[in-house]
């Protein structure tokens, strides 16, 4: 028996995440090390079960676990934070002392942002973000699935590469002030899971490539076999593409391509930037007031488009956060909300409610299937997905450049006639959302959490439709397949 319970061996079948009681116990020890003021603790433990394969063979399978403990000290209204991943007394005490030194330094320097009070919990119902199936998916189950998926490509003489990831995490915010007041904790103990499966199939000569992927909190909803079949079919159908002239084309963007294209758009809904006169949502400088007017209340895209999220939406599965409410950023084409943080709400709007980012979002759709869109197209291009989209070339118009990838086809007289060599596009999602001809039903797409160590990243599902739009601008051909 060890003297320090936190350094006991973790049994092979032990829980992989910190329990609520463990979080509270760690927090109480941290609070005990602090002298005066408020101490806030954010604990996040996570587990990843991962599997990569390439050339139809598994290249690495892994089981990884870690945790992050943010210790924030608030002294005389000035806060400071340190981070550790160790739960022993000495490490926690050292983290508290380091945060205190910096907070005191902040008092002397008086250059820190003012401390803002926490947002009251508005009591939204807990959405579904935990799946026992995801957390319980075994190493053997991942291995068996990867073998089956890779075998479909192997059987056709093609090369597949793919990735299966199942993750779980548990986090909790705790405050010494709430503890002293015997008040409930700032946020409930939150457990989340996340699953993703994606697969690329290429022909050995490198003349064709197909991809399909899915992500969400529930592994049971992902249908990996169907994804693999789609990647395989796209690879076979995309082989030996012909070169087309760059130019403006009618495009049918599959839901994945729509999500890829509007990602920078949903990231741009920021009130502070618009009021600073920058970005797509700034309108004009009001000379009399010396303030920038925004496009809030103006029609900015096609009236069939609504972009919103409801934290209680079971299909979105958004991680709860204090102060979260349903948000509609674009309502039937009209810009109705821009995100702002608590500090903005407190100082400018005299409320204590932030407006959240589109962490998870839903974009309204229509009823036209992709098949129907193809049938009604005289000449156009069918796009699987868009890749390598960088920072906007022009922020005000949200002009983007990026590439088509893993399947691009020419449609002539209502039929797919040829595979087409990939293009670089130069286009704005705002232009596309104002040039819509048809919309399909909204479906979940691949939009996984990108960086597991980032404490501020929530889960990021997106539900978007396929769409057909006029005059999409392709500016050059690229050689990559």
């Amino acid at each position, binding site marked *: 028996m060890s003297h320090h319970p936190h350094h006991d061996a973790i049994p092979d079948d032990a829980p992989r995440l910190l329990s609520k009681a463990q979080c509270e116990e760690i927090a109480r020890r941290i609070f005990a090390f602090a002298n005066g003021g408020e101490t806030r603790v954010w604990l996040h433990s996570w587990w990843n079960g991962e599997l990569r394969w*390439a050339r139809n063979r598994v290249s690495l399978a892994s089981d990884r676990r870690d945790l992050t403990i943010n210790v924030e000290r608030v002294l005389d209204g000035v806060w400071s934070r340190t981070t550790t991943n160790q739960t022993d007394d000495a490490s926690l005490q050292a983290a508290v002392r380091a945060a205190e030194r910096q907070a005191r330094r902040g008092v002397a320097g008086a250059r820190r942002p003012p401390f803002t009070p926490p947002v009251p919990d508005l009591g939204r119902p807990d959405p579904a973000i935990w799946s026992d199936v995801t957390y319980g998916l075994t190493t053997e189950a991942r291995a068996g699935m990867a073998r089956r998926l890779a075998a479909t490509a192997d059987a056709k003489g093609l090369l597949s590469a793919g990735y299966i990831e199942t993750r779980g995490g548990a986090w909790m915010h705790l405050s010494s002030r709430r503890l002293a007041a015997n008040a409930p904790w700032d946020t409930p103990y939150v457990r989340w899971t996340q699953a993703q499966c994606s697969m690329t199939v290429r022909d050995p000569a*490198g003349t064709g490539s197909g991809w399909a992927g899915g992500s969400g909190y529930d592994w049971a909803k992902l249908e990996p076999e169907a994804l693999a079949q789609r990647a395989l079919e796209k690879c076979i159908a995309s082989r030996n593409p012909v070169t087309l002239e760059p130019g403006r084309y009618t495009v049918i963007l599959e839901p994945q391509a729509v999500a890829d294209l509007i990602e920078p758009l949903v990231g741009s809904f920021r009130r502070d930037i618009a009021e600073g006169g920058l970005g797509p949502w700034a309108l004009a400088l009001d000379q009399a007031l010396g303030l920038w007017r925004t496009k809030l209340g103006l029609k900015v895209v096609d009236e069939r488009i609504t972009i919103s999220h409801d934290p209680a939406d079971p299909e979105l599965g958004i991680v709860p956060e204090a102060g979260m409410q349903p948000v509609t950023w674009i309502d039937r084409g009209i810009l109705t909300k821009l995100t702002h943080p608590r500090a903005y709400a407190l100082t400018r709007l005299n409320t204590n409610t932030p407006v959240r980012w589109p962490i998870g979002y839903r974009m309204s759709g229509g009823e036209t299937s992709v098949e129907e869109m193809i049938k009604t197209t005289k000449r156009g291009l069918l796009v699987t997905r868009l890749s390598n989209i960088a920072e906007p070339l022009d922020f005000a118009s949200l002009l983007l450049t990026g590439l088509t990838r893993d399947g691009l086809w020419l449609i002539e007289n209502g039929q797919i006639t040829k595979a087409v060599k990939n293009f670089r596009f130069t286009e704005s999602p705002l232009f596309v959302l104002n040039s819509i001809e048809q919309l399909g039903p909204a479906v979940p797409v691949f939009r996984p959490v990108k960086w597991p160590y980032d404490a501020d990243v929530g889960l990021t599902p997106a539900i978007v439709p396929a769409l057909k739009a006029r005059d999409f601008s392709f500016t050059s051909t690229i050689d990559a397949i």
Partner: protein
Amino acid sequence: MTPRSRRAFLSASATAVGALALTTLPRPLLATVGSRPEPVPPIDDPRLKGLALRGVESARAAGASYADVRLTHTRVRNILSSDIQDTESMSVGVRALVNGYWGFASGPVWSPDELARLGREAVHQAKANALGPSRVVELAPVAAVPDQHWTMPVAQDPFAISPFQMQDYLNGVEAHFARRPGVVVGLAAYFVVQDKAFASSAGSYCTQRLYQTNGFCQINVISPRDGQRLQGGVDCLSFAGLGWELFTAPRLPQVREHTLQEEIEREIDAMLADHRLPIKPVDVGRYDVVFSPRSVAELVFSTFGPATQLDRALGYEANASGTSYLNKPLEMLGTYQAGAPALTLTADRSTPGAVGTVRWDDEGVAPDAFPIVKDGALVDFQTTRESAGWLKEYYAKTGKPFRSHGCACAPQGVDAPLLHTPNLVLAPGPAARDFDDLVADLSDGIAVKALVLEMDFQNVTGLALGRGVYEVKKGKRVAMLPNAGLLFRSPELWKGLVALGGAASARRYGRSDNKGEPVQSANHSITAPPAAFKQLTLIDPLRKA
């Protein structure tokens, strides 16, 4: 503020009490090296070997034919003018090979029992996949490293200096420029020190202390001529294998010729000089182009950097960031013309001050310096112990030694090792000429000071977005082209290389290589001279079709 020497500082802090002394001491994280927890010992404490070997032995006992272990203790310090952020973490990972399949397990606790669990779990991961079709791994031979330690040499250990002293220094530089009307300079610093122990069933045990430092500098200038706001920065603060001297040294070979203050001063002057030039729209067409060292480094980073990663070339990253235009390594090696005869690109992990420099990689291999492109011909790829095996035939045929080039890297113990790009060095030209000399030779063309590159997923077609593009007439920069971009294909670009600056004109830059699923980020340096290329396509990237 008067900077003090490290020795003077240490002797002062040894007797000081209170905040200053506390910040300079390592924070006492715990590890269980023996039977009970204790403050983490220095990484070269011989007892850590026993801890690391527990993971190796456990994996071997569970059935691994090969196993390795990495322990990391990482401290990160971010110094902003109004904030200091400290992060500290420990982690450990065990990797095991069973019948050609790799398994990996990792976590945050250093203790013998946990190492044993990770060893068993890594084998469990591997065995679950070893039920599948056969997979052959031939690890390139490696000389066992017997119990050695290496500390990356830095002049000023950033973790032995008070962060408040460093913050004062940066604030002092900012205040110095604030006296100049219309000028605002913002500075930030970022430091990483990583202690790393490696053990393998090949008989190696080695420990290292590695440093990474970078900085951020934003310069805002209001033009006295027309009141326009100009933005810029200095390019001498990218990631380096250096300490606090990145900011304080009077000069740093291949990084900057002057003090940081003078570099900022010169940049402000350059921004104002550029602003005096007339602005022209892009006249689309083909032009001869001279690139600055920074732009050439960016071109190397975005073309050969990813394209000569052997795993990527063979499809191991196909489902992530992509594959490579150099996609048939065994056919292409020794025969493929990757560029003009003047082009020689070598890789190493030994350049002093470079951020990818180590004594041993994350498979216990002492990396060598090796040419990737020699006199224009593709002669090698970046390799690890497993991937070197894929080129065994080529090495045998050409009489080259069968070995890994030491490109394995696990950014933290919690991450599995992956092939990451080492330091790259583009060989300079024979004549002692710099950027301005190459521009002076251009009768009619384009000069590029900085650019942002957008490549495709095989690194073959690229779009360079200009961030300082000049029209050149009769060897003089006569106009700015603010919206200029260049379209190119990597093979033609490098075949069109006509001149390189001399050794003294080369500069070194640190860049991050993101790859893998889940994504890992590892840093390396690229050293490049300025260069002239013939006939590239100039476009306006903001123009739609």
